[in-house]
């Protein structure tokens, strides 16, 4: 501070020798003072939040835990791109003639931006979990609130395990980092064999499971005991199928026959824990589950079918960007009324079905499965049975009603709406039905997530509050059936009980008297009907083996039926099923390889 004194003092009019001496004194004083206080002067206190000045109390841990969950809802993961670009399977296709660089269009590459973002998002989540785990004991000391501390710790451990599981499913061996890095100059990390990561995942989940709340005490957005049990079953099932993809791409097989049986057993046991907890059941109708997801409700009927969901909310008209694109890119809606001057723009329901790009359409294979099983409850929900009709254009656009595809009139209208006629309801909406020749019935959009049911207003053109189902009870039941069948020589009573419970809810016939192989095929079909478009199918195909063959067959079927059962306008889609064997594993993103030189080999074929 001496510098200021100096300049001020000078203004006092001293003269001659005194002046000289005074300045000399000041100068030397200043030099000396400065030398002694330099270090303080240069040591500034950060005016920003740092790792060291954070983590002081429970609320800070809670707040940090939010960011450990948040990767789930980002647009690079379940918020959009993971569903539209990466988890494509044999039941739907990307309905654009211009292929996007993606797994879905079989045009991914080592520089695919959606893979790079996914990789980054998952490791962001892992790093956040690591940081929380390293600092939680500092923030919530052992003497205080141990229940909360252990719950938060467990949530972070499970999320970290889940992110690693997603990495394995897509990339195989990946770097395993269980602590936050401290030295920026030492960040390179080699790939860890996936079996080692599996062991880490399951031991973490098992260790954390007791500390989680019961599924009845929290909404399904929070991790709960049933969720982690179901996830363990899913992890074990996927692990049991690892030998298929390793054999296909020429990797050494790391699963032994014994271990496969053990994994199926673990899968069954963990899934069974969910069942025997008696907390969960299936909702009737099937569609209610998804209406709940779209309308910001959690198991509204009180039946806890949805066990774990990705929380997504809002419409991005506040600064909290918690809305996603489910229903917009991945799902079904109508035209954009947001720009319309009409008051309908801010309405819910049929008046304003919300804008959708409808990127995902259904394959002939999915049509045929529903048709062969006469499953209209699930078929007419997952595949749209109608289109919206409008009047006006641009600013004057208004919804007038629905036009059902030929043969898809819902039961509630079956007596009112006759072919060739229309029906007008009390609100003035007009319902009509198409003829066979309108267009081929098979060019139809996936409609599992419907913007019509959104409650948040105004509906944004591109962002929706629709949650995504990560684990449903029907999945748990089908996992029990499948594992039980694999463990035993033939399907057991338990196996039948579980699968038939799912089929009964859909109001289709129950299964009985099947061989082990027939039962396995039935489960594959059942999972398609029940769980299509829930981002699990691609991994089912991988763990069942024959993934590229299954995919190619879908494309061939399209080509063979082109212009007859399959619209010629959809001819391009068959290219999206020419999946090579290398797609069993996705490539490690080139970005990571360019800066992490300890990853010096990519997956086979990349």
């Amino acid at each position, binding site marked *: 501070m001496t510098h200021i004194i100096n300049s001020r003092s000078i203004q006092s009019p001293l003269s001659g020798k005194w*002046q000289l001496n005074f*300045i000399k004194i000041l100068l030397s004083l200043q030099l000396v003072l400065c030398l002694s206080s330099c270090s303080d002067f240069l040591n500034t206190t950060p005016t920003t939040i740092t790792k060291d000045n954070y983590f002081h109390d429970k609320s800070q841990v809670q707040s940090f835990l939010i*960011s450990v969950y948040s990767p789930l809802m980002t647009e690079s993961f379940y918020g959009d791109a993971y569903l539209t670009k990466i988890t494509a399977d044999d039941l739907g296709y990307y309905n654009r003639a211009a292929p996007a660089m993606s797994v879905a269009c079989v045009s991914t590459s080592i520089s695919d931006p959606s893979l790079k973002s996914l990789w980054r998002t998952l*490791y962001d989540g892992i790093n956040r979990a690591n940081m929380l785990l390293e600092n939680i004991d500092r923030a919530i000391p052992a003497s205080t609130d141990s229940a909360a501390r252990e719950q938060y710790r467990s949530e972070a451990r499970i999320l970290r395990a889940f992110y690693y599981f997603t990495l394995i499913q897509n990339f195989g061996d990946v770097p395993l*980092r269980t602590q936050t890095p401290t030295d920026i100059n030492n960040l390179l990390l080699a790939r860890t064999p996936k079996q080692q990561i599996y062991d880490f995942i399951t031991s973490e989940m098992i260790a954390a499971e007791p500390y989680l709340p019961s599924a009845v005490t929290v909404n399904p*957005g929070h991790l709960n005991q049933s969720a982690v049990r179901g996830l363990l079953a899913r992890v074990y099932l996927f692990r049991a199928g690892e030998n298929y993809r390793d054999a296909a791409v020429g990797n050494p097989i790391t699963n032994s026959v014994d271990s496969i049986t053990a994994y199926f057993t673990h899968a069954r046991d963990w899934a069974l824990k969910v069942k025997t907890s008696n907390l969960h059941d299936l909702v009737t109708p099937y569609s209610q589950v998804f209406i709940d997801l779209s309308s910001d409700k959690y198991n509204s009927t009180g039946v806890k079918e949805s066990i774990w969901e990705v929380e997504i909310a809002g419409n991005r008209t506040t600064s909290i960007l918690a809305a996603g694109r489910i229903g917009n890119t991945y799902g079904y809606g109508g035209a954009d009324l947001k720009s319309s001057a009409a008051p309908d723009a801010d309405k819910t329901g049929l008046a304003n079905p919300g804008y959708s790009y409808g990127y995902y359409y259904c394959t002939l294979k999915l049509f045929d499965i529903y048709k062969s099983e006469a499953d209209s409850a699930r078929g007419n929900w997952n595949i749209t049975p109608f289109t919206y009709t409008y009047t006006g254009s641009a600013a004057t656009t208004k919804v007038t009603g629905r036009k059902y595809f030929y043969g898809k009139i819902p039961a509630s209208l079956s007596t009112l709406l006759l072919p060739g006629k229309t029906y007008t309801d009390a609100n003035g909406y007009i319902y009509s039905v198409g003829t066979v020749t309108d267009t081929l019935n098979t060019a139809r959009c996936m409609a599992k997530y419907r913007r019509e049911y959104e409650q948040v207003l105004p509906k944004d053109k591109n962002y929706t509050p629709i949650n995504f189902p990560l684990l449903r009870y029907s999945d748990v039941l089908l996992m029990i059936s499948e594992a039980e069948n694999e463990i035993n020589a033939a399907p057991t009573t338990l196996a039948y009980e579980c699968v038939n419970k799912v089929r009964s809810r859909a109001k289709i016939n129950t299964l009985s008297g099947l061989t082990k192989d027939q039962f396995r095929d039935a489960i594959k079909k059942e999972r398609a009907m029940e769980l299509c478009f829930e981002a699990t199918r691609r991994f089912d195909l991988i763990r069942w083996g024959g993934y590229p063959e299954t995919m190619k067959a879908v494309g061939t079927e399209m080509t063979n039926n082109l212009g007859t059962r399959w619209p010629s306008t959809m001819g391009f889609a068959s290219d999206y099923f020419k999946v090579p064997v290398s797609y069993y594993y996705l490539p490690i993103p080139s970005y990571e390889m360019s*800066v992490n030189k300890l990853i010096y080999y990519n997956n086979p074929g990349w």
Partner: protein
Amino acid sequence: MMKLNKLLNVVALLFLGIVFANAEKAVLGTVTDAGGEALIGVSVKIKGTAKGTITDINGKFGLSVPGTYSVLAFSYIGYESQEVKVGVQNKLTVIMNSNSKDLDEVVVVGYQEIKKRDLTGSVGKADLDNMLKMNVSNVDQALAGRVAGVLASSNQGTPGEEMNIVIRGTNSITGSNAPLYVIDGFPMEDGTASTVNPRDIESMEVLKDASATAIYGARGSNGVIIITTKKGQVGAPVITYDGSFGIQRTPKQMPVLSTYEFVKLQQDVYYASAPSPYFSTDANGKKWTLADYENMPSINWEKMVFRDAPIQNHSLMISGGKEDSRYTASLSYFNQDGIIKNTNYNRMQGKISNTIKKKDLTIYLGANYSRGIQFGSTAAGTLFSNVWGYRPAVYPNQSNDAFLNDIFDESMISDYRVNPLLSLQNEFKKTSRSELQTNGYLQYEFTKGLLLKASVGFTNQDLLDETYNNSNTRAGNKTTANRVNATENTSSRQTWLNENTLTYTKSFDKTHNINALVGYTMQASDNVAYLSQTIQIPSESETLVMAGMGTGTPFTMTSSASRWTMMSYLGRVNYNYKNRYYATASFRADGSSRFKGDNQFGYFPSGSLAWNFTEEHFMKPISNIFSSGKFRLSWGVTGNNRVGDFDTYAKLTKLNSSGVYPFDNSLTSVGFIPSTLGNPNLRWESTSQWNAGTDISFLNQRLFLTLDVYKKSTDDLLLNANLPYSSGYTSGYKNIGKTENRGIEITLKTINIKTKDFTWFTSFNISFNQNKVVSLTENQISLLSSTMTLPNYYTQIGYPLGLMYGYVYEGTYKYKDFNYDELNRTYTIKPDVPTFTGETTAQPGFPKYRDLNGDGQIDSNDQTVIGRGTPIHFGGFINDFTYKGFNLSIFFQWSYGNDIMSGNLSNYQTFNGRTLTNLFTTFQDHWSPENPDSDIPVAYRPDFFQSVNQKDFFPKFTYFKASLNVPSNRIIQDGSFLRLKNITLSYNLSSKIVKILKLSKVRLFVNANDIWLLTGYKGGYDPEVSIQNSALTPGYDSSSYPRALSMNGGVSVSF
């Protein structure tokens, strides 16, 4: 001894004054310059006494002197001082010679002024006289082509645009390469000259080599620009007014298709089954065809957004004072309307300074305030996309008025294109920058040669950014999520500085000359920044604008604060032997709060040698050839500390985007995320530089040559390095990587003709710089950067920074590349012709790229270096003619060897499927069955395939082609240019007329800037462009603001 003499003199004077008062003698005199012009305010002193006077407005003075033995000393700034013996004469006529002798020019280097003769480092002194002829708001804007080694360019032509100045090539890959500005001794890290009125500037120096910059240590590695403002001169008050008025106009248009051509294009690309709305039926039931559009006028959007715009500049300055008290004060106002409607830059500025001298003590106090306001669209990236692309005509059943007055093309609402004129007129975007600089120093001379200087400075900078988007703008219209919205972004920075230096100058027997400097400085800077935004503002009002912000819904709100401190010790010794052999050494130790522990201090030494070889005896015989000559050699280390104030810490951030998880649908669940890993080991980036140079003048100083060669290498680069994502972080500052720059600079000045009435001189400079990346982040070989969707810039070890990257374009696929199936009338590409990845169905007219690796597939492995963003050489030359009172100067500037990647060509000379989008006229020549040799790709519609019967159409296309939009040399053009930057004709009124007007000096001038351009670049308005400019991505053009041709006239009056 000296003191005794002085005392004796005073005593003698007193004694003589009293006793021999009648021996006094009156002297009258006139002082003129060599041309006979009276000099006003010349100091006339009786040598050995304090008595003296100054000349009046007619150059006359009167003084009574003690006697015939008296000697009068005449001194005047800019002229050689001289002494005249009074003798017996009563009338004196003194002619003073201007001291324009180049070598005696004083050059400001760090913390000192020295004569150019004594320079041992490479310092470029800007020729302000000629630069200021350009009539710019900011002295930087006149710097291009003036000083060798200084690359001054602007990103585009927006009024008030700040210049990018790069001295001797780019050192830093991800950091700033801007030089350090030192304005009146105050170093400013993020400085610009924009706050200084160019007319206030006394001198401007560019320190280039390490010997010159090392005294600025840690902040010197990008070079230093020293600006010194005018201080009051001894003399009668001089009031000077400079004013000018001009008009600007766009020099160039980018023609787009006319209505007929546009509609024809629509016909070509549309299907019969989904016809263009242009062929619809009007209210009278008439179905329109192409022929109906033949003579229809086109809406010229480009013409509508441009205008002829005025520019004016006024500056008033007062200066004067006596030996013990000198002052200056100035006021200036600059106002420039942009040639794009609704854009403007204006600045008000005032300055005041005072120098007080009391015995051995000198005190200076000064303050400068400026407020610059930039208003309106910056055009970059968006405006012209709409201008060029917007439809030129309405549909048959569409009202022209409605189309012109609707923010949307309603039929194309889905792709967000907006009416360019309406959007432009409604955008409210205002950036106000105000800055108050105050500084002062006291200087005390202990004994002769020992000088203490203590200075204090304080600067306050305020920045206010206001944006208001009403419903007729791109960002606030009814289709946007935010609707009408407003944003206020404000930041404020306070910086103080204290510097104390002690200088000692001593000459021993006029043989050994020593000058030594020691000092220490302290500096600290605090800043705060706030941003707030509200959306869905309910009732928009034209009068309310930003005042209506409070009625909206609060949206984003952010705040930040930061602080840095610095403490330095410095020293320098200059020694010369008989002004023949020179040696200089300097040293600076800088401590910065941005670093921790042992890394806090950095040490920056330098040394240089010089040899004035013309002082040698053996050169004397040829002194008529070599008037003067010097060789210089220097080496030194400088640093760069431009990282964040707290980058050594592991930071957490609360993020509303990626740290959100809406538990139970609650939008309040926002969490903290780790944002940076932090690097406690950060330290200075250091640049070591060698420089060898020579300054030679020939033929009695008719020809001056300065030549420098340099090599600098930058180590421990403060690189914002890419980190493996598996670490959980994306990037972080590391001291890693290395770059190298080497180059040659030549400056040549010739006085071609010099007679009494006519002078012609030419000045020319040229700079070559070669840049090379030596290493990047550990083991990283290359990195890609992008200004487009796909990476289009490339950096690789062993190559220069900022190379353009992409595919090699080979023209379109021609018929010969295909097999023709007559039955189905289809073309199938021959198996041996390479195709773009995933585009095996390519058709004639599609873009074809080179298959570099020969694998039959054109994919990301076939990308390569396709252009360079930095010039091979650049420079400028000026011819200056003076005839009596007339002066004509003609200035050219050039850049050679750089390429430009034009996003404009990618979007508007390519039909990439965007329906109803207009294109450049040059697209007319695209490939078609009638024009099968064209290399401009074909027009087609992406959903072509959706037609039921494809066979009826030709050519048959199926998928959208990604290959149309990839970066390739198809969109790269040579960006070399030669520009006639300025012509100025001025006339100094003769002294007779001036006297009649009772003025002291009048200069009238007319000038024109940016008059003529020679370039091969056709991808945009101007080749001097760099949208999204950075060291990694130079020379990208996308809807840039054109540079205006301006014509000005003005006057400069002193009285």
